[in-house]
């Protein structure tokens, strides 16, 4: 008893074509898995090509089962129903679970066949499941392509409901839809609370460990002013680290502020759209360079090729490691931060202000400097403060290029190696296991972390306050 509006079942040829597509898809996935496998498991470590045919046998059985299922009245109906999205969609979680099992199977198969790497198979299974769960209706594009979404469970569940003509009551809120709605809301709230949870975790862990450092029996406040930072010899002179951090931050801002603001003013006021398409990606490229790479750049280019020849003119002898070199490296990292935040602030200044300025006969430079710049000052100062906060927290450039390893003597001269708060933490962290046993040196890691957290938090709150206090509402 078929309803009149039901579309005709697919022909055996289109079904065969779809099955062929699915086998091709399986091949592509197999090759991809092999590539991933090659890098993840290491070349031919537990990588065995001899079982490749197992996947094909299972695949063929799978397709045969599909074909047989499609021959039954219910099977053909369901096969077609899912392929065409006629009528009301199936229950969301039914589709998700069905797709999860089907697609996870498809991917995990070659992994199992090739390597018996169960961990990887499980991981791929989860990734594929998430991918599919986030697509509307849990239907993956390649499923539409293959057109064969037969579900055993659905095959015996849906037709009865579908045979009825849609009624007005179908649009009423059923208990299932209400429950689904509430469940979704609860899950999103939990996700939203994750940030609060992480903040509490950071505060609790760092400050409780820092308190352990301060309240330890070996600890005396005079240790914090002993000359030099040698945590393993219980010398925790904070001045040594603060001087280093101040130098790095100061040098970084001296590099980043002029260059970043120049780029920002140029992009916001002068550049036409064609120039922007070149300059903008350039800044984004700079922003995406990882800090370790800039640390390497500092010791392989800034120190030997810029500072050494430059310093010899003034009679300063630069080594490979110096605070100046690391500071310039951090400055390069900070350029895109200053440039992008300041540019956004200047672009937010309304056009009318510029037009009024031109109308009064002002030159372009005057307009940019005396009208737009002051109007965007809150955003621009926020950009500088954010850059300062980033420079204080920057670790790897300083760790690699400033030269302070396990300990550092007090050094106020930026042409010499030095140590910052972050680099000291990195040095302590790099030897975590060996540090753990040796008295309070391990807790000093958290003490520095607490200091760093407070400093950057204050700066961020400060920049937020500036933006809110001085923002001109247009």
């Amino acid at each position, binding site marked *: 008893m078929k309803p009149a509006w039901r579309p005709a079942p697919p022909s055996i040829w289109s079904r065969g074509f779809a099955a062929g597509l699915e086998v091709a898809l399986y091949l592509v996935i197999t090759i991809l898995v092999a590539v991933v496998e090659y*890098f*993840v*498991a*290491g070349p031919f470590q537990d990588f065995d090509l001899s079982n490749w045919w197992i996947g094909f046998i299972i695949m063929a059985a799978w397709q045969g089962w599909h074909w047989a299922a499609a021959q039954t009245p219910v099977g053909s109906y369901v096969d077609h129903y899912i392929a065409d999205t006629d009528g009301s969609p199936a229950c*969301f979680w039914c589709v998700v679970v069905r797709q999860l099992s089907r697609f996870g199977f498809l991917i995990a198969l070659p992994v199992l066949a090739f390597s018996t790497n169960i961990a990887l198979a499980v991981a791929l299974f989860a*990734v594929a499941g*998430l991918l599919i769960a*986030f697509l509307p209706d849990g239907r993956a594009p390649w499923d539409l392509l293959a057109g064969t979404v037969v579900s055993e469970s659905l095959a015996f569940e849906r037709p009865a409901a579908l045979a009825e003509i849609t009624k007005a009551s179908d649009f009423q809120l059923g208990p299932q839809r209400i429950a*689904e*709605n509430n469940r*979704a*809301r609860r*899950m*999103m*709230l939990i*996700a*939203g609370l994750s*940030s609060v949870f*992480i*903040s509490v975790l*950071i505060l609790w*862990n*760092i400050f409780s*460990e820092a308190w352990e450092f301060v309240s330890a029996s070996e600890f005396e406040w005079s240790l914090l002013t002993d000359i030099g930072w040698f945590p393993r010899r219980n010398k925790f002179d904070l001045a040594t680290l603060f001087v280093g951090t101040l130098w790095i931050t100061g040098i970084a801002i001296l590099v980043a502020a*002029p*260059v970043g*603001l*120049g*780029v920002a*003013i*140029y992009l916001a006021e002068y550049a036409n759209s064609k120039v922007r398409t070149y300059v903008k990606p350039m*800044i984004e490229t*700079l922003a*995406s*360079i*990882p*800090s*370790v*790479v800039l640390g*390497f*750049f500092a*010791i392989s280019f800034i120190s030997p090729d810029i500072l050494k020849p430059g310093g010899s003119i003034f009679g300063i002898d630069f080594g490979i490691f110096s605070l100046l070199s690391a500071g310039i490296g951090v400055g390069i990292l900070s*350029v895109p931060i200053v440039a992008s935040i300041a540019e956004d602030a200047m672009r937010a200044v309304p056009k009318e202000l510029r037009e009024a300025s031109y109308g009064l006969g002002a030159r372009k*430079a005057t307009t940019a400097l005396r009208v737009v710049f002051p109007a965007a000052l809150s955003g621009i100062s926020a950009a500088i403060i*954010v850059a300062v906060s980033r420079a*204080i*927290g920057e*670790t790897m450039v300083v760790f*690699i290029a400033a030269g302070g390893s396990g300990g550092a003597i007090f050094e106020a001269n930026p042409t010499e190696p030095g140590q910052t708060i*972050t680099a000291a*933490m990195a040095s302590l*962290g790099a030897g*975590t296991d060996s540090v753990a046993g040796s008295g309070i040196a391990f807790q000093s*890691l958290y003490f520095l*972390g607490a200091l760093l957290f407070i400093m*950057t*938090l204050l*700066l*961020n*709150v400060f920049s937020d306050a500036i933006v809110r206090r001085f923002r001109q509402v247009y």
Partner: protein
Amino acid sequence: MTATTPDTPKSPLKTGAGKRLTLDALKRDRSDDLTGQVFLGLLLLAVAIAGAMVLAVLITVAIDAADVLSTQFWDFLNNKSSSDPARAGVAQGIRGSILIAGIVSIVAFPVGIGAAVYLEEYASDTKLTRLIEVTVRNLAGVPSIVYGLLGLAVFVQGLRGITGGSSVISAGLTLALLVLPIIIITASEAIRAIPSTLREGAYGLGATQWEVIRTQVLPAAMPGILTGAVLSIARALGEAAPLLVVGAAAFYSTGFQGQLDQLQGAFTALPMNVATFAKLPADVWAGHAAAASVVVLVLVFAINLAAIIMRARLTKKLGR
């Protein structure tokens, strides 16, 4: 701006000096404007310096890496780390980075997108909402090494039974926390850009709030959300400081490892390889540090490029 100047030479303005101000005079004034030219010159200099920075980094790394990459390219990609420069490679780093990226995307994507949906779609202006917003903004500004401390305390020491201590699971979870605020912020922006008419249309057809979000808001915001999420993966792949604290190994040797050991055992990642090589004497190891940098840069740039292409395609598909 010349368009706003009266374009009629027949009605000359009188300037204070008594000279007639015509459009021609204004144009000449612009080219004679020395201060303006100097200012523009300075701005162009700043742009040129920024460009020189990018080029200098890329060229330095490429030149330093040329030797290693040309003589031992496949060995470098396939070998484990070693104390012998001729046999040292980054295979362990590549493996670690891929696994970390996988864990970050499994953990951080759903939570981040869920939090963004809550903030933009569900939350009303309550104290709790404001608390969440403030914490997200502040977490985005917390230095990455502080997240390393969190990972050390919670995942490495607290949950040692599950993560196995200093392992790729600990590192992946730590970096997931690190990129979570970034994903929340970018996803929020993408969702905020969806016009409310789309939601109202769906509500008008009787959809529940969750149905509106699932069938209208999320698909429409997907290009922006995915771009932010993919870029955050690039960020996670470049981070080394938290890994250093969580306990990434400079060198480790693997005998036979069971399946679980691959996730719970010693690990390293590409940026850690760079840092390790860069800390060794430069005369022998600079080439390796540069070559590892090239691998990181290629990976990061490829991900960024993929994000750009994906965004363009998805936007085109949605017809916006």
